[in-house]
């Protein structure tokens, strides 16, 4: 075990997999000479050279398309976007090539590629740089979407993603990069995709969250515990495939659920989870499932307004009180 920051865990995963398999390479803006926009790839250029740690111009659509092509012919690219917001420029490549080619070729082609970047709100980066992009991508069959909350899961899931033979999108968080945690050193430590974790056990209500929101949900659970409410916090880790078994088992126990996430309230992964719960645990629900999400507006730049739009622990607590009929 090592104490690693989230960014160091992501880096360790990439280094281990690049040492294990020479087909793996890293490509993106500022990943090499600048050592990564968020210093995730620090030291990797020196270690692997310019052939495997490739700086690109500001051309997301171009380097995404080139990497999908490289994956088709046998390499295993890791594509870093400066943030997921900029993947919008490459959306056509991800939607129409990465996600589709295996199916459209009748299985003749595979696209073993990982796209990774920080996602969601940061601090005062404005509405165009604060998107929660997982909702757009989790909608698409053919893609896997991961959103870990801890350094250990970041390492284990990223390694599993790199070894996977299909496209995987990996959601990090600018405000999680400095978070520290115990991380296994075993080079074959993998976290299976599609398995949620129970971040905190409880019996009164289920809070489902992922990525940064897991930490906010745990903060809310601590507040609730002082009121005598024991919240169970599920760290989803994987948004697609979705571990509905863990969610349903928890709701069967608690009879109430709140979904906490970054992203707008209309549709999205949160709504998908609500659908699974009402379908698979209908007879166990004592209250409608509620969500805590971004407010339904573009992210304000103003720091105070931004705090209003981004889910805070207090808003999760409020929703929990409602499903307990204690609001």
């Amino acid at each position, binding site marked *: 075990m090592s104490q690693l920051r989230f960014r160091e865990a992501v880096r360790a995963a990439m280094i281990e997999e690049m040492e294990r398999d020479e087909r793996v390479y890293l490509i993106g803006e500022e990943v090499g000479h600048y050592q990564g926009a968020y210093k995730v790839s620090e030291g990797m250029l020196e270690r692997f050279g310019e052939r495997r740690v490739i700086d690109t111009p500001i051309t997301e659509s171009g380097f995404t398309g080139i990497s999908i092509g490289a994956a088709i012919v046998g390499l295993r690219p890791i594509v870093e976007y400066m943030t997921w917001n900029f993947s919008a420029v490459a959306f056509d490549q991800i939607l129409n090539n990465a996600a589709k080619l295996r199916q459209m070729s009748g299985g003749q082609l595979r696209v073993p590629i990982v796209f990774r970047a920080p996602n969601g709100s940061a601090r005062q980066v404005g509405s165009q740089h604060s998107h929660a992009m997982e909702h757009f991508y989790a909608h698409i069959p053919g893609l896997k979407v991961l959103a870990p909350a801890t350094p250990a899961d970041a390492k284990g899931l990223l390694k599993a993603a790199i070894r996977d033979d299909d496209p995987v999108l990996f959601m990090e968080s600018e405000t999680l990069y400095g978070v520290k945690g115990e991380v296994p050193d075993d080079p074959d430590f993998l976290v299976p995709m599609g398995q949620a974790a129970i971040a905190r056990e409880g019996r009164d209500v289920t809070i489902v969250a992922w990525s940064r929101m897991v930490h906010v949900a745990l903060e809310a659970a601590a507040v609730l515990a002082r009121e*005598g409410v024991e919240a169970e916090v599920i760290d989803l880790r994987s948004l697609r495939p979705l571990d509905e078994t863990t969610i349903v088992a928890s709701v069967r126990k608690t009879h109430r659920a709140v979904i906490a996430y970054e992203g707008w309230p209309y549709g999205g992964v949160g709504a998908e989870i609500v659908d699974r719960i009402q379908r698979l645990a209908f007879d166990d*629900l004592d209250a409608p499932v509620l969500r805590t999400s971004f407010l339904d507006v573009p992210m304000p730049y103003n720091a105070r307004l931004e705090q209003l739009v981004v889910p805070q622990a207090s808003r999760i607590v409020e929703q929990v009180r409602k499903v307990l009929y204690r609001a």
Partner: protein
Amino acid sequence: MAKVLEMPKLSPTMEEGQISLWHMKEGDPVGVDDLLAEVETDKATMEYRSFDRGTLLRILAPGGSVVRLGQPVAVLGAPGEDIAALLASLLGSSPVAADALPLAAAHPPSVADVVAAPPAGPAGDEPPTGRAKASPYVRKLARERGLDLGLVSGSGPGGRIVARDVEGLPEAVPAPAPRPESGVLAAPIARPLSMMRKAIARRLTESKQTVPHFYLTIDVDADPIWSLREQINADLAAAAHADAPVIKVSLNDLLVKASAIALARVPECNAEFTPEAILIHRRVDISVAVAVSEGLLTPVVRDADRKSVMAIAAEIRELSSRAKARKLAPSEMANGTFSISNLGMYGIDEFAAVINPPEGAILAVGQVRREPVLRGDAIVPGRRLKLTLSCDHRVVDGAVGAEFLRALRALVEHPTRILLA
């Protein structure tokens, strides 16, 4: 020709019924004996089946309505038949129709946010539909535990019944509702009267106000009947087959049988007062009080003097489980001649029960007490049991009641006679 369907008499004592659920909707074809609706009477939830064939043209009393006997609840006729004139005549003859639809008019459904704050008081928020508004989880609990949600008032938004209303939330969740400041009278929680609660209130008030009660108590040696019961149950367990459930005999089963024998010997205690005559029954039908959620029911063990203790034990088990599920037919709770109420399992030493009219007496059974008793000149550990007979003095005089209790004591203290009789 359209026909008006009226609230039928589904129990001998009902004066009104609540339509708890319609099984048909307007426009549905109806055949003879088809289930139209479920009606909660003072005794049980009963099926209302059709005597006629036709199409259900109009529901006059929606689910939840309380309707007096003989008042209209629906119109049956031919498909598309014009019933305007019939409806006009029904509505014209108020208070009939007005009486039939009070709840629907008085409580429009709440359209508040589904998770809005609960209303200040749950009273009066009974939804207008016959289907009680309840969370899916509560419905599951109700199915599993045989709860009658019509008897529960919901504390959720719009009167929704939520888990805490049927089981209470885990103790760890404290009620954050602030206590009113001192000096302010907090509003009580109002629980609407269920049909059963109304029946209990009416009949017991009538009993206590019109029946002159007096009470006789005896304290009997309970060691013999205790030992006998243990021996019977040990024998039953030893003889039980693997595939058959083990039947156990309770003290109450033995006391029902003992009382039945004593009543056969002292028939003056097995009697009923009427203004013209005292009726001495030639049957011994013992009503057994069973506590159920929201009240109590008194299923009757017929001809208890002629049944074996085992048969009585099995019958009481079966009747009480159906009583708790509220599945007893009214006929199974009617025409008892004598009642037994046992609070021994709650640790009650002795009590005086209220007579269940028109019966002439009721026996109240306390707990078996372990205490020092005198045997010869020695004080030894023993068991005692108090039995209190409430008598209707119009029928049973003190000496007659005492005679019954003497017969009962002889049986309880020499319990093999209970088995041999």
